[in-house]
């Protein structure tokens, strides 16, 4: 084949758009990394050393990770059975539930947090009496953490629900459920041993998105007074130049590691190993 013929066969425009897209994503990241390394030419990693040396970084980072894990866990417990039941028994309710899960896109986080503070900053009493059942959730640390996890669940609902729902769509859950029932399985067994393993990748995708939202979230954490990673990064950005760039890059890396883990767990098939 001649050089010209090969040139004509070369998918020029496909490569052009691919490289343009890649540059769009890579350039800002490159700029961030380059900036984070430019603090001290003698010690390019100074911004990273400073960031990792700050005890507030570790405290806020670990707290956010803990909150993210709690949110993921609670979301899975809430969303998987809900999406499963809607697909199996209440398909007519799907549109309503989908609409509800999209509410966080419509209602800003600031409204959500003020609503939460308004309701949960007063003690729980027996209606029409002054008997207090529980003190305000905003008044103690565990209560605030419960509130913020609930808020994160709402914020991550569109991503988690849609991921799980898409996962459920890829398996014939009705027939699998009936097959398991005919073999004597209870609902708990069906969900834990049949449904969950078969939507593992979808759940991991939802979990990753939830993780990304929670770790970077500022509004809820700031207004509820939770010393999470988002407010820390925000505060740092206002007073420092190089460390926020370094930490932003670290956040990217974490996300990539998480995505790599998903690929590893799913065997690169986009679905649970063994399911086609």
């Amino acid at each position, binding site marked *: 084949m001649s050089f010209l013929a090969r040139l004509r066969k070369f998918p020029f425009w496909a490569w052009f758009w691919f490289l343009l897209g890649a540059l769009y994503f890579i350039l800002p990241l490159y700029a961030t990394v380059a900036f984070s390394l430019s603090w001290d030419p003698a010690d390019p990693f100074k911004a990273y050393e400073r960031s990792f040396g700050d005890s507030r970084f570790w405290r806020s980072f670990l707290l956010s990770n803990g909150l993210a894990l709690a949110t993921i866990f609670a979301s899975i417990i809430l969303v998987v059975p809900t999406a499963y039941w809607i697909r199996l028994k209440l398909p007519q309710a799907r549109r309503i539930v989908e609409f509800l899960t999209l509410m966080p896109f419509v209602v800003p986080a600031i409204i959500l947090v003020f609503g939460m503070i308004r309701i949960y900053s007063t003690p729980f009493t027996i209606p029409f009496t002054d008997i207090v059942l529980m003190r305000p959730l905003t008044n103690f640390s565990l209560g605030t953490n419960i509130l913020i996890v609930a808020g994160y669940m709402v914020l991550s609902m569109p991503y988690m629900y849609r991921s799980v729902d898409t996962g459920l769509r890829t398996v014939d859950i009705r027939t699998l459920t009936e097959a398991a029932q005919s073999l*004597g*399985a209870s609902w708990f067994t069906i969900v834990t041993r049949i449904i969950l393993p078969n939507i593992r990748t979808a759940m991991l995708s939802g979990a990753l998105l939830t993780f990304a939202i929670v770790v970077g979230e500022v509004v809820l954490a700031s207004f509820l007074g939770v010393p999470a990673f988002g407010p820390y990064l925000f505060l740092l950005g206002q007073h420092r130049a190089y460390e926020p760039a370094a930490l932003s890059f670290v956040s990217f890396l974490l996300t990539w590691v998480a995505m790599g883990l998903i690929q590893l767990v799913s065997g690169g098939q986009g679905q649970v190993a063994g399911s086609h």
Partner: protein
Amino acid sequence: MTHLALRNISKNFGDFVAVRDFNLDVKKGEFVSFLGPSGCGKTTTLRMIAGFEIPSAGTISLESLDITEKAPNQRNVGMVFQSYALFPNMTVAQNIGFGLQVRKEKESDIKDRVNEMLSIIHMEEKANSYPYQLSGGQMQRVALARALAIRPEVLLLDEPLSALDAKIRISLRAEIRSIQQRLGITAIYVTHDQEEALSLSDRIVVMNAGEMEQVGTPFEIYNFPTTRFVANFVGSLNTAEAEIVDPSKGALDMDGIRLESTNDFKGMSKGDKVTVAIRPERLSFLSEGKKENVFDAKVENITFLGSVVRVEVMIGKRKFSMDTFNRPSLSLPSIGDACKVTCSDKAVLILKA
């Protein structure tokens, strides 16, 4: 003795009646097929036995125990689905052992039973394969083993061979029948394929529009269909309108052509209009031997169908199909030739509406 009994079963979905007044007694070890076109209610009836649908009326009992309202996981009924429904996250052995694990049987017992089932379906070497690594036929054999592993009271099969190609379908249906007979298990099989139902079943329930049309052995269903629907649905059929001339002698008149039939004429009288039916293979050329009915005919078309040759002839104003076995010595007339066609009086059936 009745093993499974369905009494006056009906099922409505809103205004739509899916199954109407269904009654059936199934003996232990019997293989019964529900045969009918799509939407006739056969799968709905099967799903009611499995517990996936609750009847709107009537009762279902298994071993004299009313199971009408019992949950599917408490019925001990095994089910094989058209789409295999193997658990994608489990190996073949795990799939087969799932029902036993759910029942909390001992690990050693589960292992033994799984091995036994694997040997029954001749798939010992595939124990650690995942469903996606198997062919359709293998997947359905695993699904069968999984359903049988729990030693169910009744095995339900919902069009299990529909998704398979013709060759595998034939070999697997023989395997299903052989396993069912060997284990002596009661089986209910849903299909729209008459050949499957005829070759597998001890009895066939032909269904149409939610109702039972006829229940009988394959021989009875094929040779003595009682309704026009059954006759048309099971096998090929020539039908024609005729008038009863003499019920005591079984004499009929079809457009001026005299016909004799040994059919039961009870309740019919002279002058009644009826539908007569003759199977294509019951018609033959007069040269092959004279029978009670002889007709003048004209050859319209000849089609070779492999082992069978189908000859279409005009008898009077009506076109009839005639099937004859293909053999090297077969001598056939040419298209347009006049010929004589014959059939026995037993071959002429009179159908209900």
